[in-house]
C-alpha cells in the first residue's frame, strides 16, 4: 500500500489512476489545487493494465510525424501520451515503442502511464478502494474508502467505463463477457458466436480468425465502419479482416440479428436470433458465445446521491459541457466517462472523449473550470494585440491538437471588450461557448461533414447571438492558405473594430 494521501480533508479528491485520473490530477496540480488521488489498483495504467485483450491498441502514436516530437502540434499524431506542460514531465509513448507498429502495444502504453506518474509527480494512494459516497450539508462530499474517509469540496471520478455490460437478453448474462475471453488456443476448431459488432467484437473476431472453426458476429444494427462514419467510435480499419472474410465468402459471418435468447446445450450454446435488416429466423449451435457488448461506468452509490444517468439504463452519468454531474454540483468525471458530455455531435460524429487523445484535453479544461468556479482561482489569460488575432486563429485551425482530436467539441476562444481589448481565453467546450452569454467573441474549431470533408468552423458571438461560419476545406488539409487567411480576417474584422 502506498503512503500518499492519508484519509482526511482535502480541497479535492480524484478517484482513479488510469490515464483519465493521472491527467486530471496533473492538471489540477498545475493550477495549485491540492487533492488526494485514490486508486484500487496497485499501479498506474487503469484499463491498459489488462486490455485490449489482443494486446495492441487501436489508437496510433506516429514515431515520425509532420510535427516535431514534443511540440504541442505533435499531439495530433500521438493519440496516446498524456499531456504535460513542461518537457521534463512528459512521458511520450513513442519513447517506449519498439518500431514494429504505429499502434503501441498494451505493455508499451502501460509503461508510458507509469513513467508519466513518475516524471509528472502524480502521487497516488494505491490499493485504496472507493466504497461509498456521502453528500454533506455544507455542499461537500465524503468519499468512503477501504483506507478511511476523505472530506472534500470537489470529487473527480475517473474510474473508467470498466464494468462489463450485457444487454437484457435471456441467457446472455450467463455467457462469458469480452473481459472473460480465454486464450485463442481454447477456441481452436470451435464454433464461436460473438454478440456485438463494435470494436471489441471485431477485435475478438480478428484475433480468433486463426483458431476458431467458424466465427459468427451478430447484433441488431449493421456494422458501422470508421472510414464511412468518419469516427473512431465505429469499427476501426485494423479490425476489419473478419469483415473482409465475410464479404469474400471466407466463412466468417457478420449478421444483423436481434438475439432473442441463448440456451445451454450440454457442452455448448444455442443462440436463437431474428434477422433485422433481412427478416429471418436463425438458430446457431455453437461451442462458445462471447458477449462483446461493451462497458458501463461503475456508478456505485452515486445515483442514490442524485447523480442522473442515461444511455441504456444508466451506463453513463449525465454531464454538463464541463463534465460536471448535471444534477449534483461538485461531482465531476474524468477519462473515458467524459463521453457522456455529448457536445454538438455535428454530422453525427461523436467526440473522441472515449479515448486518451480526446479526454486528455477535456481534463485540462475541466481543471481550469474547477479552479474558477470552486476555488476562486482565475487561470492566467493572455491579452492579444489586434494584429495577433488572425495569425493565432489561423495557426490554431491549422494545427491545434485539441481542435483536431476533439472536432466540434473543443474550440479556441478569443473575447473582445472595449476596456480589455482582446483576450485569449484558451480552449473551451464548444457546447458551452455557443450557448453561454458573454462578451463578443470568436471560437474556432474543426469539423468533418457528411461528405468526409474536414474544415475549420468559426462561431461568432456578437451582441449575445452566436452565428456559425464554415471555412473551406482543403484536399491537403492546409488551412493556412491565402484564401483561409482572407476569409478569416473578413469574418473577425468587427472584433478588432
Amino acid at each position: 500500500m502506498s503512503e500518499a494521501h492519508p484519509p482526511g480533508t482535502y480541497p479535492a479528491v480524484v478517484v482513479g489512476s488510469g490515464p483519465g485520473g493521472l491527467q486530471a490530477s496533473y492538471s489540477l496540480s498545475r493550477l495549485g489545487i491540492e487533492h488526494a488521488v485514490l486508486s484500487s489498483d496497485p499501479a498506474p495504467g487503469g484499463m491498459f493494465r489488462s486490455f485490449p485483450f489482443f494486446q495492441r491498441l487501436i489508437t496510433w502514436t506516429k514515431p515520425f510525424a509532420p510535427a516535431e516530437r514534443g511540440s504541442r502540434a505533435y499531439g495530433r499524431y500521438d493519440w496516446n501520451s498524456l499531456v504535460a506542460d513542461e518537457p521534463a514531465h512528459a512521458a511520450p509513448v513513442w519513447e517506449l515503442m519498439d518500431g514494429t507498429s504505429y499502434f503501441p502495444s498494451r505493455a508499451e502504453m502501460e509503461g508510458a502511464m507509469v513513467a508519466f506518474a513518475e516524471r509528472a509527480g502524480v502521487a497516488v494512494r494505491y490499493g485504496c478502494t472507493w466504497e461509498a459516497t456521502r453528500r454533506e450539508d455544507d455542499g461537500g462530499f465524503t468519499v468512503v474508502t477501504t483506507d478511511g474517509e476523505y472530506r472534500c469540496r470537489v470529487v473527480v471520478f475517473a474510474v473508467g467505463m470498466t464494468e462489463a455490460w450485457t444487454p437484457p437478453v435471456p441467457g446472455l448474462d450467463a455467457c462469458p463477457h469480452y473481459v472473460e475471453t480465454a486464450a485463442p488456443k481454447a477456441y481452436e476448431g470451435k464454433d464461436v458466436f460473438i454478440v456485438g459488432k463494435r470494436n471489441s467484437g471485431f477485435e475478438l473476431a480478428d484475433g480468433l480468425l486463426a483458431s476458431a472453426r467458424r466465427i459468427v458476429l451478430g447484433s441488431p444494427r449493421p456494422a458501422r465502419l470508421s472510414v464511412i462514419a468518419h469516427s473512431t467510435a465505429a469499427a476501426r480499419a485494423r479490425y476489419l479482416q473478419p469483415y473482409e472474410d465475410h464479404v469474400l465468402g471466407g466463412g466468417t459471418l457478420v449478421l444483423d440479428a436481434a438475439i432473442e435468447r441463448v440456451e445451454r446445450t450440454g457442452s455448448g450454446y444455442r443462440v436463437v436470433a431474428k434477422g433485422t435488416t433481412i427478416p429471418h429466423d436463425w438458430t446457431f449451435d455453437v461451442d462458445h458465445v462471447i458477449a462483446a457488448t461493451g462497458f458501463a461506468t461503475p456508478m456505485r452509490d452515486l445515483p442514490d446521491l442524485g447523480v442522473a444517468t442515461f444511455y441504456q439504463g444508466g451506463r453513463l452519468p449525465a454531464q454538463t459541457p464541463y463534465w460536471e454531474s448535471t444534477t449534483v454540483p461538485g461531482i465531476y468525471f474524468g477519462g473515458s466517462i467524459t463521453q457522456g458530455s455529448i457536445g454538438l455531435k455535428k454530422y453525427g460524429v461523436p467526440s473522441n472523449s472515449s479515448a486518451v487523445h480526446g479526454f486528455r484535453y477535456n481534463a485540462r479544461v475541466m481543471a481550469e473550470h474547477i479552479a474558477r468556479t470552486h476555488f476562486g482561482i482565475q487561470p492566467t489569460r493572455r491579452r492579444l494585440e489586434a494584429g495577433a488575432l488572425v495569425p493565432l486563429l489561423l495557426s490554431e485551425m491549422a494545427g491545434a491538437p485539441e481542435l483536431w482530436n476533439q472536432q466540434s467539441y473543443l474550440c479556441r476562444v478569443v473575447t473582445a471588450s472595449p476596456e480589455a481589448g482582446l483576450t485569449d481565453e484558451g480552449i473551451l467546450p464548444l457546447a458551452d461557448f455557443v450557448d453561454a452569454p458573454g462578451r463578443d467573441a470568436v471560437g474556432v474549431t474543426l469539423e468533418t461533414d457528411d461528405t468526409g470533408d474536414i474544415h475549420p468552423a468559426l462561431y461568432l458571438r456578437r451582441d449575445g447571438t452566436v452565428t456559425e461560419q464554415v471555412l473551406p476545406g482543403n484536399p491537403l488539409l492546409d488551412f493556412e492558405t491565402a484564401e483561409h487567411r482572407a476569409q478569416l480576417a473578413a469574418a473577425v474584422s468587427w472584433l478588432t473594430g
Partner: protein
Amino acid sequence: MSDPLPSSDPVELLAGLSLFADLARPQLEAVAHSFEEEWVEAGRRVLRAGFAGNSVYVIAEGEASVGIEGREVNRLARGDFFGEVSVLLGEKPFADVTALTPLRCLVLPGGQLQGFLLSYPAVAYRMLQAEARRLRRTTLGPE
C-alpha cells in the same frame, strides 16, 4: 391519463412511442441500436438555429421549448420529434429547441434519416401523419 413512466430499456422505450408503433420486436431492436441517446439538462439548447449538421431528435422523457429569435412558438413532450424539417430540406434549422426540464432524447444523425425512413416505411408514414397534423394546426389553428 398520464403516460406510464418511460422505460430504461431502449426497445421498450421505442415501443411506447407512436412513431415506432408499427414495428415488430426485431425491427425495434435494430432501430434502438440506430439511435443514440442524449441527456440534456434544463435550460440548454438541443437544436440550434443556423448551425449545420444537426440530427433528428425524438423526446423520450421531458419537455422542450421551440423558439424563433427568442419567442416561444411551440412546446414538445415525450414522443414528439424535431430537427427533421431542416434535414429533409437540406437547410440549417430555423428554430432553437431548448430543454425545459431534464430531457432524454433518442438521436439519429441527419445524414442517416433518408436511409432510415426508406428502411422503415411504417415510421415514414407515421412521421408524415405527424407533419400533416402540424400543417393542419398551422393552417386552421389548434384543434
